[in-house]
């Protein structure tokens, strides 16, 4: 059976756990899309945190999980952009999956040449695990997945040993691991945001002269790691990897390229 044609990607997450990095990951995807030169449409549906709408003033808040009518309006107004990103709130898995099923959203998306990419946060806590299982059971192989690990927020050891993790590995589901950002850097970003009277994105914060240089280096490291991993997962993040206009320059790691000789560790030749 030939692969259906894809012109759009709808990226979101249906998991119920809060504070696991959903909005941060989506912000990272948006930052990479901007870097890669791929237009992205966004909407913020998380009324509790409003992360995306605070950081991207263009993004509107839509209470899409309030009723099925609101959800339907959101889905029917999805623009023709190559990437569309929706940040749904926690504790909405049941509502979202039920709406997806009753409105036959996947059938409709398929007709409009759109394929969904669902972020799966490999957190070991029961809520995250249960909502991940529900999401996979409801959507199956009709969507693409990205496994996200965020060691600063949660452990993933139980997930790694699960059958679902094996299945994802067999299907070569991309894995993105969010690097940790220190509390000091986060405080400096908050202080700079207060000074600017608006919430800075990480891509904006990295250019702020008011931040300490090491904090800016840390943000830069975070973004670099996210960009590299997003580019590696481009086949499920953009409808066509040919849309990527700007690629990440990858430097060969000279230390990693030459492993330390255990028997003569000091035998270093430049």
């Amino acid at each position, binding site marked *: 059976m030939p692969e259906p044609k894809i012109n759009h990607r709808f990226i979101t997450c249906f998991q119920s756990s809060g504070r696991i990095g959903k909005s941060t990951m989506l912000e990272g995807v948006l930052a990479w899309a901007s870097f890669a030169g791929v237009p992205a449409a*966004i909407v913020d549906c998380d009324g509790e945190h409003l992360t995306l709408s605070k950081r991207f003033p263009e993004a509107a808040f839509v209470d899409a999980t309030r009723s099925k009518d609101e959800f339907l309006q959101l889905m029917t107004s999805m623009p023709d952009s190559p990437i569309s990103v929706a940040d749904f709130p926690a504790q909405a898995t049941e509502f979202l999956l039920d709406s997806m099923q009753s409105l036959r959203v996947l059938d409709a998306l398929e007709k409009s040449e759109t394929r969904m990419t669902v972020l799966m946060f490999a957190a070991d806590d029961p809520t995250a695990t249960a909502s991940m299982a529900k999401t996979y059971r409801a959507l199956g192989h009709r969507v693409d997945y990205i496994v996200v690990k965020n060691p600063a927020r949660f452990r993933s050891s139980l997930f790694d040993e699960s059958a679902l993790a094996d299945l994802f590995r067999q299907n070569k589901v991309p894995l993105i691991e969010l690097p940790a950002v220190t509390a000091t850097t986060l405080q400096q970003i908050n202080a700079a945001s207060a000074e600017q009277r608006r919430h800075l994105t990480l*891509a904006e914060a990295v250019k702020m002269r008011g931040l300490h240089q090491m904090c800016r280096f840390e943000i830069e490291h975070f973004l670099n790691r996210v960009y590299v991993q997003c580019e590696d997962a481009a086949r499920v993040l953009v409808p066509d990897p040919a849309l990527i*206009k700007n690629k990440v320059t990858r430097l060969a790691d000279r230390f990693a390229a030459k492993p330390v000789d255990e028997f003569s560790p000091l035998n270093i030749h430049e």
Partner: protein
Amino acid sequence: MGGKPFQSKLEPHYDSIREARRNRQTWQAIVEMLAAKGVTTSRPAVYSFMKRKRKRRYAFGMEPDEPILPTVATLPSRPKSIPETSNLSDLPPPPSEFETDPLSLPPKAKAKPKWAVLKPNPKT
């Protein structure tokens, strides 16, 4: 028992108090007006008197007569500039908020686009 039933000394001035209140006079101004007429009273006393009068409680046998309902006044004749309509069916139908199906809701105003498209910035 028996004897003359109690009657407030403000009773003869009820109409003037009510008229003053309708002219948005304060209770204090009414007390001063009554003092000018030789009636010594206080602000709460006037207030309580009017509050009690509003409740329309009368001592047994002192109820006023049943009010006579006003008769329907004869309407003035229609000016000739407005044509008279002889039959209701000649009237245009009232504007309906429904379209053809009474169960359908009236159309909503076109909502603003909810999605925002971010322009890429490869220099970042």
